[in-house]
């Protein structure tokens, strides 16, 4: 891929700066991918199926959600709807990257869309905000730099997890690895009172609606919690004194 422009910025160094920015995320993604590999093989998937999941879907939390619901024998439509709901935040990332990368040719946008992840989004937007003078080719180089260490680690660690999967003994209580991991991922997201309101409504409704057929409680709780969070944000913002 060539990024040559009139002034030919040093795109290699920008790419490697992005690469270094992406490295810390490998330590988050790696163990998460190993865990997915292990749990997927324990649920009866073979190595190919497990790896296909990570390559095709490339979204950890949604993959765990789908796996959990399939193991509970929820209807396929509920599995898809719930896992996609977990991934709705990707649309938000896509929207907030658009001012920075939206001017790229369509084929480049179509290509980079696959690589919009929690990690690449976090890595790239921090840089874009700090350096508003970056050119479009530099922004693209930085984005792919962030992605370069993270995505191979995601594939490779899924594979490692799938290979060691069935050898993990029951005494490790791995059934609870999923709740602990999700709680740990969730806690830092609870930044504002509105986020706390959303999480609280989510917990309350999911427990009250647990008896709903076809695992629909998750979707009901998710939608209500999303609306509660958005509404709470409006109310809290209104109370803030005008600047």
């Amino acid at each position: 891929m060539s990024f040559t422009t009139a002034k030919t910025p040093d795109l290699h160094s920008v790419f490697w700066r992005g690469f270094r920015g992406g490295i810390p995320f490998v330590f988050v993604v790696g163990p998460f991918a190993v865990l997915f590999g292990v749990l997927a093989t324990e649920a009866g998937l073979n190595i190919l199926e497990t790896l296909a999941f990570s390559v095709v879907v490339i979204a950890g939390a949604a993959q765990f959600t789908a796996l959990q619901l399939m193991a509970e024998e929820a209807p396929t439509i509920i599995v898809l709807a719930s896992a996609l709901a977990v991934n709705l935040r990707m649309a938000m990332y896509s929207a907030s990257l658009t001012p920075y990368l939206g001017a790229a040719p369509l084929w480049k946008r179509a290509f980079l869309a696959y690589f919009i992840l929690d990690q690449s989004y976090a890595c790239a937007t921090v840089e874009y905000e700090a350096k508003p003078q970056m050119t479009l080719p530099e922004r693209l180089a930085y984005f792919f730099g962030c992605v370069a260490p993270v995505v191979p680690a995601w594939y490779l660690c899924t594979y490692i997890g799938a290979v060691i999967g069935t050898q993990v003994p029951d005494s490790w209580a791995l059934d609870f690895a999923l709740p602990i991991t999700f709680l740990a991922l969730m806690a830092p997201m609870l930044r504002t009172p509105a986020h706390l309101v959303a999480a609280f409504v989510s917990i309350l409704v999911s427990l009250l609606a647990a008896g709903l057929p076809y695992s629909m409680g998750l979707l009901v709780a998710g939608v209500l919690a999303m609306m509660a969070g958005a509404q709470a944000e409006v109310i809290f913002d209104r109370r803030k004194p005008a600047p």
Partner: protein
Amino acid sequence: MIDKSDLWFVIIGLGVGSYFLRFAFIGLVGSRQMPPWLLRHLRYTAVAILPALVAPLIVWPAATDGMLDPARLAAAVVTLTVGLITRNVFGAIFAGALTLYALLYLLG
């Protein structure tokens, strides 16, 4: 056990759907402005869905046939508390796992 044809349907459906969510704005919407109400709702998707997925697993764990389990409940509380205070994902996982194993051993 997971049905294999369902599995591939889920993998491909979820792949296509997830790709579309990623492509939607940067590919189709381009530089047009998003309505603020939509962005406001999207901001809360993760904190709306993840707790709803986890809460029943904590209160009614499959490993204990749906009986509330003190070790698992305590591990969940510790994970969330450490995560809220330190904002450190690894620290929270480690503290939660330690609590779980310690209590499973002591109460075991």
